[in-house]
């Protein structure tokens, strides 16, 4: 590991840590039950046991935020996981193969998947199987595969021309062995950075989907849906939009900063590869 | 023509070039010899006002009656490309890949007042002068379509476009093949006005220049006529340099200067060379001045 601790890494780490903390704590304790509808507490102002107030159904905002953090992280982890597990082998294959047509085919398929933005996939998937957290995760995951494949391929190409790989090939090592021993460890840092950036994008996508009604179904709290519910009351109770909005922005900012910070930490020269989502 | 007096270049707290003084007369060919890290490129860049970010120059340098150091960019840019110009080391990256070659040559002239049509015509003439084949067609080519040697000739054409009084060349042939080098050197020797030729290659200096300055550790340690300096070096560094470049008979070891070139800012006080010089003693703890007319050296224990 080279590089030094930098501001981005620290700031990003702190923000992400906050989100993770909120989610973890929510498993054990929340100020109130976020799904509990309580007409008496309708639109209650911050104060008393309701630190950030309550929404139009009387549900505690803070509790909703905390449990919403769970959803956010859950979706991010699964989506990025799918993308990494599917995209990395594809990218490495495309980078390592001597068959030009294979690489070309993989990249073309990649571009095709890329043409289906996460939102669109989620809408389509939702229409068939019913919208919800699961379909959102799968859709976002599949839509993120091209990003990982591209980054993996670019990094693999760079590794393939290094002297130690050439030596390995001259010594007769087979492709699989080279992939495991040389390629994967070296493209690891690029993939970690991409994972962080994709996580941020996944959060944005989930928020957008929930906002549109295609994400997490009620009553499970979700930051995106909280925003959508706040819209009609924007004129009277703007604070309902403030908190989920802030949560989303800070979480995304955190992952982006973390990604940048990791990039600088692991190898400043990596700045070129994979800046897109 | 060019008079440099006490030029110093520093990057932050590190002094990279110390009190360098020399002169280049009109039509004179002067070589500036040194290894990597001797400060020769920085000296040239500071004359052009093209030092990289964070690097500054102090001291005096004049071209004719005009100051070159400590002058605002606005004034300097009027001199650059017109009164003095420079050819750099790397021909592969020195040209804008998106612009046609002829346009880039013409730009040197339009920047200093010439009309576009005239500049374009003259660009073709210049390409011919640097012995590029089919100059009219070549002018419409893009840099990536040319070889390294061809690109370097284009750079030369750009440098000569406004008939400058002084041409500075910073290792112009180092990145080229040996055969191409020879042609290029011949060309430069033929077309250059006053020339400051920077290189680490002694043979090149011998073939192109009349006078030579030897630089080490950011200082000029010896200067004089090429023939004089190369046959009877006074400074111990020059002596070592020449010995190391002579072809030795079989069976004998290649003479080297012991030790290595220190990193910037880590040169010894006093004589910059004393930590590698077999003749160094206590006297060398104070820096020797450049002494002698014609053939000058800065050494307490010069060779005889």
């Amino acid at each position: 590991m080279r590089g030094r601790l930098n501001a981005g890494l620290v700031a990003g780490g702190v923000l992400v840590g906050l989100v993770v903390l909120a989610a973890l704590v929510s498993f054990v304790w929340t100020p109130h039950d976020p799904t509990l509808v309580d007409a008496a507490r309708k639109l209650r102002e911050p104060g008393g046991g309701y630190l950030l107030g309550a929404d139009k159904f009387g549900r505690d905002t803070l509790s909703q935020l905390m449990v919403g953090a769970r959803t956010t992280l859950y979706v991010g982890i699964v989506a990025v996981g799918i993308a990494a597990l599917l995209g990395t082998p594809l990218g490495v294959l495309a980078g390592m193969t001597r068959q030009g047509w294979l690489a070309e085919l993989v990249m073309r398929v990649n571009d095709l998947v890329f043409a289906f933005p996460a939102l669109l996939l989620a809408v389509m998937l939702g229409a068939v199987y019913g919208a919800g957290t699961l379909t959102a995760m799968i859709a976002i995951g599949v839509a993120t595969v091209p990003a990982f494949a591209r980054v993996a391929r670019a990094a693999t190409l760079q590794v393939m021309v290094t002297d130690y790989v050439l030596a390995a090939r001259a010594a007769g090592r087979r492709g699989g062995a080279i992939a495991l021993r040389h390629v994967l460890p070296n493209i690891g840092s690029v993939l970690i950075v991409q994972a962080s950036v994709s996580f941020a994008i996944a959060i944005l996508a989930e928020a957008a989907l929930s906002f549109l009604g295609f994400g997490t179904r009620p009553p499970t709290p979700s930051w995106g849906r909280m925003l959508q519910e706040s819209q009609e009351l924007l004129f009277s109770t703007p604070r309902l939009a403030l908190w989920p909005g802030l949560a989303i922005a800070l979480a995304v900012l955190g992952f982006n900063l973390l990604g940048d910070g990791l990039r600088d930490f692991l190898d400043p020269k990596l700045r070129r590869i994979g800046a897109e989502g | 023509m060019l008079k440099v007096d006490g030029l110093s270049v520093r990057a932050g707290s590190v002094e990279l070039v110390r009190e360098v003084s020399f002169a280049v007369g009109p039509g004179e060919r002067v070589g500036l010899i040194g290894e990597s890290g001797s400060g020769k490129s920085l000296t040239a860049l500071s004359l052009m006002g093209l030092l990289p970010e964070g690097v500054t120059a102090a001291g005096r340098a004049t071209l004719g009656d005009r100051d070159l150091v400590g002058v605002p960019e606005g004034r300097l840019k009027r001199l650059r490309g017109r009164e003095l110009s420079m050819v750099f080391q790397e021909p592969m990256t020195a040209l804008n890949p998106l612009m046609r070659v002829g346009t880039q040559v013409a730009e040197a002239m339009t920047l200093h007042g010439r009309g576009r049509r005239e500049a374009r015509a003259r660009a073709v003439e210049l390409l011919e002068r640097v012995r590029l084949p089919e100059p009219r067609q070549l002018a419409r080519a893009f840099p990536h379509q040319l070889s390294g040697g061809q690109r370097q000739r284009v750079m030369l054409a750009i440098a000569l476009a406004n008939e400058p009084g002084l041409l500075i060349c910073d290792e112009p042939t180092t990145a080229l093949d040996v055969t191409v080098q020879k042609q290029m050197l011949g060309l430069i020797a033929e077309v250059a006005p006053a020339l400051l030729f920077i290189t680490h290659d002694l043979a090149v200096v011998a073939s192109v220049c009349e006078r030579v300055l030897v630089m080490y550790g950011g200082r000029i340690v010896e200067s004089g006529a090429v023939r004089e300096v190369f046959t009877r070096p006074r400074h111990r560094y020059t002596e070592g340099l020449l010995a190391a470049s002579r072809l030795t008979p079989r069976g004998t070891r290649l003479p080297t200067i012991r030790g290595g070139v220190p990193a910037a800012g880590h040169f010894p006080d006093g004589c910059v060379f004393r930590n590698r010089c077999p003749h160094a003693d206590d006297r060398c703890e104070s820096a020797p001045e450049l002494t002698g007319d014609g053939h000058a050296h800065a050494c307490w224990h010069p060779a005889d």
Partner: protein
Amino acid sequence: MTLYLVKRLAVLVASTAVAGVVVFAFMALLPGDPAEIALGVNATPEAVARLREQFGTDRPPLAQFLDWFGGLARGDFGTSYVTSAPIGPQISDRLGVTAVLVLGGMVVALLVAVPLGTFAAVHHRDPLGAAVSAVSQAGIAVPAFLAGILLVFVFAVRAQVLPSGGYVPLADDPGEWLRSLLLPWLSLGLVQGAVLTRYVRSAVLDVMREDYLRTARAKGRGSTGALWRHGLRNAAVPVVTVLGLQLATLLVGAVVVERVFVIPGLGDLLLNGVAGRDLLLVQGVVMVLVTAVLLINFLVDVAYHLLDPRLRGPR
């Protein structure tokens, strides 16, 4: 160069066809029979069979696909199973609205990103440049709909100068049309502008380190002149490639923004279609969106090749 164009065009057509298959297959998975759904629970089997024949859903899937795709190529999107309204006109009506939304957003993004990005690059060593970088970093974290809500809050709720939603067609009232689009454009453009700023900064920084800038200065250009004349054109190349990606993201952002501001565009149509289980409509809209993205990528590829003479092939 032309060979490349032809090859690339072939890829575009092939991709569109494959996309069509994917979309069709997807929608074919939708549970329930359109005819049954249209007629309701009490329909007689004969009525259902007749309607199926009318819809064409009684034929084998391949025939249905070819029919549909062939129709698309001719511009015929078919007739909705649910509303019995022709789909083509619905799409073309709203396509214009979404296109204006997306293009306006792109313009705003460029207007923000080019000056800011260049500024950040030129000042990358001093606090001003760092500040711009930080702001753009924060800007990325804000999704378009959040920006929309924020803008509505500031301009419509507090300042009350702009409408909080709704759309007025250009033909009806140009002034109101503009006013209704201003906040949506800003929502899309500011966020994309933040993303683009980082790319512009990075591209300009790369160019600033290039040798040919030094050559330009050696000819007699000042440092700003060299950057303008030589640098920016070269920096444009990587930025243009990103623009293509951004257009795709803008398209998606537009879908969401249309919800926020209640604008009758393609996104709105799509979402309504899904909610109403209007199979053919959803197919049509998705195809349009996907084709748009593929087309944009194609154009960007071509533009990239045109801009950089190194890619044009031998003389």
